[in-house]
Every structure is written in C-alpha cells, then in structure tokens.
C-alpha cells in the first residue's frame, strides 16, 4: 500500500496543534486551575489567596447541603438511568417489530430520532412551565398542585421526567440498532426452540443486547450526573431556594452565587475523579466487550 509521507517530521505536529491548543485551553488549564484553587481559600473581592490544605474538601463533604445534593444526585441518576433505558428499550422493541426487513422506514425513523434530543429537551421543559405547561395542568386534574421551582419534590420529579424524556431518543437509537444487528437466523432458531415470545426476549434477545446496555448505562450515568445542568438551571430559573440540586449544579451555585471558589473547586475535583473512574470502567467494558461473531 502507498503511504503518504510528510516532508518535515514537524509537519504532523503542526497539524495537531489547533486540536491540542483547544484541549489545553479549555480542558487541561481549567482542570489544573481547579485542582490548584481547591487547596486555597479565595478572597473574592481582593483576589488574595490563603493556602488551606484539604480544608476545602473536608468542609465541602461534611456540610449537610452537600450530603443532600449528593443524595438527590444519586436518586436522580438511578431514576433517570433506569427509566430512560427501560422506556427506550420498550420503544425500540416495538419499533424493531414493525421495522423488521423494511429498510427505508428504518433510516427515516433514525433521522427523526437523531434530530430530536435538543428539541425534546426544550419541549420537556415547556411541558412543565408553571403558566403554560400542559403537564402541570394535567396533574392539577388529579388534585396535584405542582409547583415546579418552589416545592422540593415537585421540582425534583419534574427534573427527573424532563431528563429522562430528553435521553430516551439517544438510548432508543442504540437499542434499535442493537436489536437490528441480532441475526435473523438466531431469532428464527429461537422461535423454533421456544414457544413463548417473552421467554425468547429474556433468554436470547436481552442477553445479546447486554453489551449495548452496559455501554448505554455508563453513558446515561454520565449524562444524568453532568449533562443535566441545563435542565436543572431552567427548572430552577437560577433560584435554588428549597429546591433539589445536583452536585454539578451545586458547584456552580457555590462558586458563582456563594463566591466560595475554593470550596466549589474542591467539589469539582471530586466530580472529576468520579468521571475519571467512570471513564476507566467504560474503557474496560469496551475492551472486554464480547464480540459475538
């Protein structure tokens, strides 16, 4: 095979430079800065810094509002991951049954769902609007006077529903393509071996989807933890009050509202370690991913 050779050995590095610069400026430098400032007490008005060791960390994790946020984040993540995966799988199985062997249809559906997530997020938030939100009106019919942004659990449940709703399309696509990649012959052999459709699902289809499910689970945990900032922010309209917050949102609150840069840095470092751990787990999973061929 013909190989393209660069004239100068420096040239490839030059090409890499813009990407490297972006990583350095927007990721490495802020991360390093966060780690550094997590060991200092910052004076927000005069910019003086005092080294305080791990005080910021001990302060952060022992405060009761941190515990509350951590607990809510955990609950939030479990609920969102479980329901967004579960509902997406249900929809994917239904769609898969309709689509079996009907190619053009499939691509069309994929498109719709690929476009959907940002739009779905916006719609979801609108649905819970205190004034025009139909879901709030709907629950009111059952005597549930939802006060999103005011009541702790009302806000929490609204966040969970919108976050779940927003993630379903992504999961749906992965599950659907996972289902479609299960060989037709295997399904047919199963239909000869097992008279029960639900039995076939749990003993054949679901195990064959396991690699997809593991992968999605990690993605969803990461999503619920870190990428729901916008949803929380819009729901609370920047006024946390008595509302539940996620850990990521709390970093923002403490740093920019509470002007506690040191404490907020310590919290973000903890989150960085967590995301690092998740990433390692994910890579391990991908490496060990069983290839059924």
């Amino acid at each position, binding site marked *: 095979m013909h190989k393209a050779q660069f004239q100068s050995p420096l040239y490839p590095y030059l090409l890499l430079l813009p990407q490297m610069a972006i990583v350095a400026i927007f990721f490495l430098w802020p991360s390093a800065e966060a780690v550094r400032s997590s060991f200092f007490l910052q004076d927000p008005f005069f910019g003086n810094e005092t080294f305080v060791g791990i005080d910021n960390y001990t302060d952060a994790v022992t405060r009761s509002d941190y515990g509350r946020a951590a607990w809510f984040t955990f609950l939030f993540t479990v609920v969102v991951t479980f329901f967004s995966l579960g509902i997406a799988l249900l929809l994917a199985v239904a769609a898969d049954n309709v689509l079996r062997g009907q190619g053009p249809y499939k691509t069309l559906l994929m498109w719709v769902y690929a476009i959907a997530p940002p739009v779905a997020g916006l719609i979801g938030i609108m649905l819970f609007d205190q004034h025009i939100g139909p879901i709030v009106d709907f629950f009111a019919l059952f005597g549930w006077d939802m006060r999103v942004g005011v009541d702790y659990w009302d806000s929490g449940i609204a966040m969970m529903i919108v976050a779940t709703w927003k993630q379903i399309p992504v999961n749906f696509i992965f599950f659907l393509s996972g289902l479609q990649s299960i060989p037709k012959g*295997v399904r*047919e052999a199963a*239909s*000869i071996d*097992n008279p029960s459709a639900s039995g076939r699902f749990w003993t054949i289809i679901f195990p064959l989807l396991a690699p997809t499910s593991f992968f999605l689970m990690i993605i969803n945990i990461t999503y619920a933890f870190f990428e729901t900032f916008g949803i929380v922010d819009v729901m609370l309209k920047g006024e946390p009050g008595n509302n539940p917050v996620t850990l990521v949102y709390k970093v923002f609150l403490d740093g920019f509202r509470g002007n506690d840069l040191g404490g907020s840095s310590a919290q973000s470092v903890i989150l960085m370690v967590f995301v690092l751990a998740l990433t390692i787990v994910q890579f391990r999973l991908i490496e060990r991913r069983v290839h059924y061929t």
Partner: protein
Amino acid sequence: MTTLEIKQAVKRYPNGALAVKGVDVTVEDGELVVFVGPSGCGKSTLLRMVAGLESVTEGEIVLDGRLVNEVEPANRNIAMVFQNYALYPHMSVYKNLAYGLKNRGTPKAEIDAKVREAAKLLQIGDFLERKPSQLSGGQRQRVAMGRAIVRDPAIFLFDEPLSNLDAKLRNQMRLEIKRLQRRLGTAAIYVTHDQVEAMTLADRIVVLNNGEIEQIGTPAQVYGAPASTFVASFIGAPPMNLLKAQTGDGAIVIGESRIEAPVRANGPVTLGIRPERAHLANGSGGADGPPMKVDTVEELGAVRLIHGSVGGQHFTANQSADEPIPGDQVRLRLQADDLHLFDHGTGRRL
C-alpha cells in the same frame, strides 16, 4: 405412512413477489427429500413455510396428519438446520443443545442424557462448555445438527447446511448427514442448489424452477429421464447437451446428419445427449453418428472432456482417460436409448 404433505402451496411475499406457485410435495416416513434448483427458485421459501417461519398464502401444510398452517414454529414438531448455523452466541454448546428441550419442560436428567447422546453421535462431546465463537465452521455445523437431533422431531429441515464449509469438509459432512438420517430414521427435507448434493443424498429429488416443480423423482429417474430441458441441464455435470434437431420418418436430423431412431414426433425438437453417453470414434472408425468438430480437450484425471460442435451447435463429450485423444474430426457413436427428446417450444419431455 406419510410424514408431510404440502398441498397446493402458494407464497406471495408482502412486496408482491410470487415465490412459490402452487406446489404439491409429500414426504414419506424416514424419507430424505431434496429440494434442488437455482438460486431464487423458491426452495428456502417452501422449506420455511413448512417450518412456520413464513406464512402460507394459499394451500395446506399437513404434518403427521395435522394441519399446521396456523401453528407456531415451536409447536410444529420440526427441527431446522440453518445455512449460517444460527447458534445462540451467548450460550455454551451444551446450552445451545438443551435450550429447546428446556423450553418444553423436559426434566433436567433427561435433557442431560439427550444432549450427551447427541454430542457423542456428532463427536462434539469435548466442546460442550465452549461458546460457538470458539469453534471451527465444521464444529459449529455439528452443533447445529445436534440442536436439531435432540429435539427428536417429526421431520428435519435443512437449508443449505453445508454451503459455508470448504469442499473437503462438505463431502465428509454430506456423507455423515446421510448416515445420521438413516440411523435416526427421521424424515427430512434438504434444500440445496448443488445438484451433486441432491443426487448423493436424496431418496427423492424435487427439482424447482421459478416457484414451480419441474420434476419429482428418484435420483436415477431425474438423471435418466429428465422431465424437461431445465432438469436435463440442471442435473448432471457437465450438463446434458441440448441440440436443435428435426424429426420425421423415423429419424432425427441434426444439421446434415441423420440418426435413425424410432421417433413418433414430427417437426422441430430439442435433442438431449448426456456427455458421458456420447462415445467418440476417431476418423471413420466404424461409427455412423453425426460428425463432431473438436476444439478443446480438458483433462480431469480419470476422464477427459472433449468440447467442440455438432452441426454448428456447442457439444461436449466425455471420454475415459484410457481412450486415445481424438483428432479434430470425430464421429459420435450414439445409442437410441441415450437420446432424449424435448418439445421444441415448452421444453417438456416427449
């Protein structure tokens, strides 16, 4: 007794494609019936209708005296071996074999006994704990067979089970399938596009073409008296020579030469002559058949193929390697019994 009756089966796919056009086939107890035909002729479709994997548009599938048109595949008492084996990739070989029995509520001890017996029969006992991905193609093939055997079905359905194997393994497995089927005494339908497989395996061959049956018969019947030019050219290798000829006055005329034969037909016909029944005589060595112009000789070891033309039409003859290599011009020596006459228009045997 009859195991399976396919009565006037029609299959129209949702896209309108008419894959099977009113087919009647019966499979007797313990019989191995082969569906053979070119790719796309509807063999798999017909087999899958028997399995219940495709719905029956019209007609009836009767298995062991029971109409099964609307019966789920799992409740039909059939077992199928797929072309790409379709093993369950996440299950061990043992579990692959046991899966069907387990779902029928067979007791554990009985499952174990059956799995081990089948494994022994197929010599896969050493791989029972392996996953399919850890097996060679031939071993997977055996597992697929094992999965069919343990079910102890009324009929085995094979859909080109050997086409993913290399030639040597294919011949070996072909023989093994035949032995196994005889030994178990279970009726079977075997689908293939390979006429050699069809001839060697079948008790009876069903030749399909374009969704219709061309001929049903034993291998000897299908080879010896092909019902149409399609069958004649499909069964046997190299295929039967088909020449345009004229008949009349108790003779067949090809180009310039006449063959005296007791023919009733009068007018244009298609004359079929198997290469292995066209004997050659060098020069004018006593033969009185039509002359053949030789252009290429292929040595195949025990035999050689002589390609050329008779009356301006392509012709192949088969010769034992012991015989002398013919010159450019030879004469054919033909026996009246070896001449097959087909209708010039429809291609049906006369």
